[in-house]
């Protein structure tokens, strides 16, 4: 999510502008035959052809995946559910934390900031192990893999979302705050009808990026065998000893889910009118 923060403006014509050319049918046809590009493409294709062991490709049998389509689909659904649940609870917690951060309570702010920074600056895999194996030793309450997995995802997403929500709240124009206090709106009206709707709209693009990165993060729950897509596909590939086929399909499923999330975020952005 950090990486995609600098994707810049969406201008499909940039390559053209860099080359000082206007796109036209003939120009794009000629561009297709541009010598260095075609040479590079052919070189990539030739290298792939040379390095791929075709005798092993021929042995691959993707029919095995069809046989296991039912557990794979259910597991993909489980992945979506776990991510969505963690994300929804995380969003509530995060927005709550961000509101608390805006209130003038001194020591609370340090505590919340520490919470946010701790969860943002440690790897998810360490958090998973810490919650699943470490915490029960101290608290005496042992959690199932699913519980500790969801807990880790929820807590981490709440920290990331609090950070995004804080930025969103601070991006609401000053005039709105002043107007709310000039009208002497009650605190609840001010937050729920003036500030938060605008802040949520501003938050949509980073939320989409975060959703994708948490979908990817949920695959890590496979380490604890939670029962989502990664766990199930690892089990199937162990059982059938056809890891290449199963892993390829798993990767494509994750890719499809991520592309769908990106698409839906774009639609949401358009729907709320932030993008024409």
């Amino acid at each position, binding site marked *: 999510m*950090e*990486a*995609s*923060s*600098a*994707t*810049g*403006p969406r*201008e499909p014509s*940039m*390559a053209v*502008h*860099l*080359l*000082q050319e206007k796109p036209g049918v003939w120009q794009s046809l000629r*561009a*297709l*035959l541009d010598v260095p*590009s*075609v040479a*590079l*493409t052919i070189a990539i294709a030739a290298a792939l052809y040379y390095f*791929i*062991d075709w005798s*092993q*490709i021929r042995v691959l049998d993707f029919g095995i995946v069809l046989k296991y389509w039912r557990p794979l689909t259910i597991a993909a659904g489980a992945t979506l559910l776990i991510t969505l649940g963690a994300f929804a609870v995380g969003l509530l917690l995060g927005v709550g934390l961000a509101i608390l951060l805006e209130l003038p309570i001194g020591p609370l702010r340090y505590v919340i900031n520490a919470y946010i*920074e701790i969860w*943002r*600056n*440690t*790897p998810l*895999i*360490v*958090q998973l*192990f*810490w919650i699943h*194996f*470490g*915490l029960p*030793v*101290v608290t005496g309450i042992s959690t199932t893999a699913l519980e500790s997995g969801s807990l880790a995802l929820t807590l981490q997403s709440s920290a990331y979302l609090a950070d995004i929500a804080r930025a969103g709240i601070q991006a609401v124009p000053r005039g709105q705050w002043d107007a709310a206090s000039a009208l002497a709106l009650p605190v609840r009206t001010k937050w729920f009808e003036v500030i938060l709707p605008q802040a949520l709209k501003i938050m949509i693009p980073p939320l989409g990026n975060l959703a*994708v990165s948490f979908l*990817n*993060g949920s*695959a*890590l729950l*496979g*380490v604890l065998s939670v029962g989502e897509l*990664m766990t199930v596909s*690892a089990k199937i590939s162990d059982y059938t000893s056809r*890891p*290449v086929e199963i*892993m*390829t399909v*798993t*990767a494509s499923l*994750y*890719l499809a889910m*991520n*592309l769908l999330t990106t698409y839906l975020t774009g639609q949401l952005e358009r729907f709320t009118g932030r993008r024409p």
Partner: protein
Amino acid sequence: MSSFDVSEVIRSLPELWIGLEFTLILVFTSLGLGTLIGLLACLGRLLGNGLLPWLCAAYTTIFRGIPEVVLMFWIYYCGPLLGGVRPSSLIAALIAMSLYVGALLSEVFRGGILAVPKGQVEAARSLGVPEFWVWTSVILPQAFRVVIPALIGVAALTVKVSGIASTIGVTDLVYQANIIAGQSYRYFELFTAVGIFYFFILFPMSMLAKVYERRLAMRSR
């Protein structure tokens, strides 16, 4: 059992040190290779013609859209298809991470180059500045300044992702902590120590990124 036993962590420091070495190898190698791959993919996408930009775009979309764990397992198992030998877990993790970081960085670089105002490039060209200097003294310096926070973010993400290499058996920090904790059942102490360790690497990075972000926002105002 409930008391926090620091001596256990201190006793296992030599093993953790081995893990740290592998973590550092993973992070630095994949950042280096990833920068190279990212630059190539970004330039291919911006300056190439025909199929090449499309190929580069497909590469970034695919490798950013697949979870890192799945990517590592996939490359670990698909090694024999490419070149006929099964890669060791370290090599597989390095390849997976380099490709992943490369995809992230190519998007970052592209974003930076696209963020340079068109007027700058047009002004340089209309002044008759040679194309080489348009790139090296107009586009790239400005693009680099915009991109610094995102670069630090990718480096931090690489550190976080390196822990995942333990799932395919690279003896990095997380793996070592797991092994030691499995023997003494001191999970809480060891993973707290490892978490604190990661935090001390990652927290300064995210603070630095924030400082640069604020500075950029000040300048663009």
